[in-house]
């Protein structure tokens, strides 16, 4: 009986420690970064520059033409990126692009379904930028923006 209580306490301690670690680790694992090819001549970009580029209000950042990539519409990362960095909800984004397409002002960015595909696309040539979870990037890309 005495051992049984100790094990139970021990189990609770492990659970609490684990929970504590997971809570603390959460922001790191879901932190979004905007990355580019290492040879792109950009070092840092602002949230406003990202917003304007991903909403296709411009095709340039600091006078350089940059191509962008998006996650497909089922991706939670896409939802998080647009809500936290661009400042629009899924519905607002849908309505925005419907209006823009209907006016003949362009099409939404090309889409990929996985982080690996995004990394591969960004790595392929300079002046390409994409967004990823920080945990999913590798040494082959340069971070231009990190969400605090």
């Amino acid at each position: 009986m005495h051992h049984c209580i100790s094990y139970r306490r021990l189990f609770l301690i492990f659970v609490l420690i684990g929970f504590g670690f997971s809570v603390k680790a959460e922001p790191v694992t879901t932190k979004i970064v905007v990355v580019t090819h290492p040879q792109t001549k950009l070092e840092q970009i602002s949230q406003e520059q990202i917003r304007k580029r991903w909403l296709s209000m411009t095709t340039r950042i600091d006078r350089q033409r940059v191509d962008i990539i998006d996650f497909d519409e089922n991706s939670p990362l896409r939802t998080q990126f647009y809500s936290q960095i661009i400042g629009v909800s899924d519905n607002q984004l849908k309505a925005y692009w419907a209006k823009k397409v209907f006016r003949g002002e362009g099409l939404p960015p090309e889409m990929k379904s996985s982080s690996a595909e995004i990394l591969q696309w960004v790595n392929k040539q300079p002046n390409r930028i994409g967004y990823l979870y920080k945990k999913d990037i590798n040494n082959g890309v340069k971070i231009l923006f990190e969400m605090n």
Partner: protein
Amino acid sequence: MLKRKTNPAIMATLICGLTSVTFSDATYAVQHGLFGNVSVDDNSLDRADSDTFVSELIFYSADTLYGNFTYLWEFEFEKTIEHQDAHTERFHIKYSFADELKLSLGQFHSPIGYWNRTFHHGSILFDTVERPFFLDFDANKNASTVTPVHYIGMMADGIFETDDAQWKYQFGAGNGSEISTNQNTSGDRPEIESGTSINSDNINLSYHLSYHPDEQPYHLGFFVMRNEVQESGSLTDNSITQYQAKLTDQNLYGLEASYKMGNFDLIAEHFWFRHTNQADRAGAYNASAFYIQLGYQFSAPLKAIYRYSQLDLEAGDLYFDILGAEEQYHNVFTLKYELNEFNAIKLEADQQSFLYGAQGNVYTIRLQWSFMWNNPLDAIVN
């Protein structure tokens, strides 16, 4: 407005075929959707030809075809008490050389003014129920359709970015407009339509340039158009001149501006017309049309809008006489309530005053539900 009747079964096949083809490339999402509205109105004239119920459904589709080739297709179904209609509003294929130069072939909205390029169909895109009356394209409404809002041909467009602004241009070249002056028994007014036949005496050239400063809440634009208008009716049906004979050389130019400050926004356009008539009533005539629209956003879903619009013309201008246009001005008050990103309800009061003649004021009340639906075929295809 083109009124080519289209078989709904053929359209359904085309739509489904288009969707399945474009969905085979998984890295792009074909953009297709619906814009629509259902409107009821009543006016003080109780005219027999006034629409009391209108519904429009506009399907659009756009995607990358291959490499730098893209397309845009817009198809409209319209139902009023008097008639129903289905026709292609726009279809063009575009090749992008660079941001600064894109070339397209097909049927377009004329690059004149702000409203015609920015809103056109899709009433949820704009704040009022009706367009400014001189930019409307249904001649049977209580308004005068006087502006050539479509053309068939080619377009070059692009954007030049400087350190602190964007310059956008559109250059259009294509067939001039057509009007059938045949006597008709239905009472419908003649409409100005996109010319469909290539004729060296019937050309349309247009140019639009606009300036969009990066950090300023306004834009400015100017536009110019040379439009040669020809007869599309036949003498056997009592048209005023023979088929494809020139009716009018139309020179049109204008200015536009938009501005946003806090809860207020403003749109204004001014058109100047110069017509040199070529048919039996030779002579040169001037006209002008303008509107100014002010909006105030009360809270997130509710907005109030006021618009003043006016058309001035010289007596004897063949072009306006054929179209049945009269000098007039409108005071329009609208309340727009956005239910969400895809639905809005609008209530509008319109005071129409004719500057000459015995008609006096006409008061119209309109109620409209406008909506949009983005990628509705996804649910069917997936």
